[in-house]
């Protein structure tokens, strides 16, 4: 993800710069033209046009500024996020699932984007994704469900650009609960895809 994000961020900045430059090159000839060939004849209306033009220019500049700011903010946030994900976070922050589901939530996807960024910055790392379930449910079905959770997780990372051979999967079903409790809070923590670094 990281390389992709950076690429996307870079592309956005280029686009904004291009827009700014296009705006400049457009603005300059317009001004010259209006001031050049018909400076006097249009003088009566030129004040109104000038006002409209200035307003347009101001609006354009404002929009460009906003785009620029937005892009920078995003870039900064991405950098911060990528930088903020430590090795410990990569290992300790689990992707969580709803009961009897292997579908990634939006939070899960965001977390995986950060993990992908971290993997991109640490290309020597290989990881195993463990699929886990809560205790509710039967042994064999939970093993199969954990298997699918691990694979969903791996699949999303590979679509974000992580090379498939760097990721292995394993299901533990309900065999390795993170939280030994028997309540909703414990179950929610236990329905997870957990990352283990297998080589660096």
């Amino acid at each position: 993800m990281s390389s992709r994000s950076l690429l996307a961020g870079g592309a956005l900045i280029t686009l904004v710069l291009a827009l700014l430059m296009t705006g400049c090159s457009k603005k300059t000839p317009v001004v010259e033209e209006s001031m050049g060939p018909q400076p006097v004849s249009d003088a009566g209306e030129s004040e109104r046009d000038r006002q409209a033009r200035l307003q347009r220019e101001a609006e354009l500049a404002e929009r460009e500024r906003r785009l620029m700011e937005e892009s920078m903010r995003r870039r900064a946030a991405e950098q911060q996020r990528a930088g903020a994900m430590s090795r410990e976070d990569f290992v300790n922050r689990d992707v969580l699932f709803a009961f009897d589901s292997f579908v990634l939530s939006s939070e899960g996807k965001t977390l995986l984007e950060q993990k992908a960024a971290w993997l991109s910055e640490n290309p020597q790392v290989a990881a195993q994704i463990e699929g886990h379930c809560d205790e509710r449910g039967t042994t064999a079905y939970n093993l199969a469900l954990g298997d699918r959770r691990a694979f969903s997780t791996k699949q999303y990372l590979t679509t974000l650009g992580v090379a498939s051979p760097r990721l292995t999967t394993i299901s533990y079903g309900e065999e390795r609960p993170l939280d030994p409790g028997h309540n909703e809070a414990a179950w929610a923590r236990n329905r997870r895809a957990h990352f283990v670094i297998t080589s660096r």
Partner: protein
Amino acid sequence: MRCGSLVGLLLLGWCILATAQTRLYIDIDQVGGYLLPIALPKLLGEATAPELGENIRAVLRQDLELSGLFRIVDPATYIDDVPQSVDRIQYQNWSTVGATGVIAGRLQQLSTDSQVRLELALHDVVQQRPRFNGKEYLGPRSRHREMAHRFSDIVFREFTGETGPFNTQVVCVTPRGSGQRGKDITLMDYDGYGVQGLVTDGALNLIPTLSPDGTILAYTSYRAGSPNIYLRNLSSGAEERLTSGQGLALPGSWSPDGRYLALSQSIDGNSDIYLYDTKRKGLTRLTTYWGIDVSPSFAPDGRRLVFTSDRGGTPQLYLTDIEGRAAVRLTYDGDYNTSPVWSPRGETIAFVGRSAQRTLHIYIIRADGSRLQRLTNGSGNYESPTWAPNGRFVMYNSERGNAWHRHLMRETGQGERMLPDGGSACLSPQWIPRTAW
């Protein structure tokens, strides 16, 4: 024997029917909550080995009570503390205390090698004659529980006409002690005694499935990293790894002839049903759905299979056969139906379903989709159903206060009894005839 003097096949047929009617006292399908009263007085010669005698009577009592079909008449009411002999008792004295049957026995400790001789007989108080004339067991003292289980089976058969469920064993998953994350595969008597370790390497071992002849144990182990299926020959000790690779492989069930092992195996999160042919040493794929297909269980005909699939959006039971014909959905009630096990007696399938109260319960359904019935009614969760070899009882795990126990009940959902906790937990039990190796 009384029929021997009669002539004509018609009369003979009538006689067998009449004999059956007069001799059997329990129709296992119709019995309801009725408990047949049996008297179990002290054994002759018990005074020479009081502890052993008491243990033997305790096993007999436990078996008969666990069946949910018998009750032991309170010994405090007995007129005769000990019967006069194994084959002659005072029927009137037992009729008076309300017994329908009496188990009379003699225990003898042989001087050599702690061998014991145990003789047991069953008397019919209603007909005032011996119902089962003395059975003699001779063996080491350490196997006295097995002797008692064998005789309990005779009592069960005499009164119900069905093979008894007591001289049986269970293959189990037994968690290791605290701090250890592995799970062992163990073998024990159906009542939790006589625990033997089968796979005790400290790894996570799951889903044990013993072949019908009791020799080949299929199970999943994480010992080499990924959860793969291993086949261990319990008589020779030889072991082979059946599956390889990163995915998840789980045994399902053996065909009744022991030739095929139905299993599930996943590649890239896609779990499908396969048949492993032990003769040709090859795998045949039976399902091709992209999602979860697990837990295949063979019908007694050796052709049909029931399994769990999430192809309909929620886990439900489906039927297919060994040719891999298009799966037919069996369950429609509820949004979580898993772990099907096909009864060895025919068309009934037991499984785990999630109730409206969001707890897991044991259900049964016929293979044609009819007669769906919930068997368990308590609070908490019920899991891992397994049929008695005679198909008349279902055993399962139940969760009470965050601890797992084993229970059994008849397939009618009646006679629920909790099995003793022999000190070794038995999860995911597979109920089997006593192994011979």
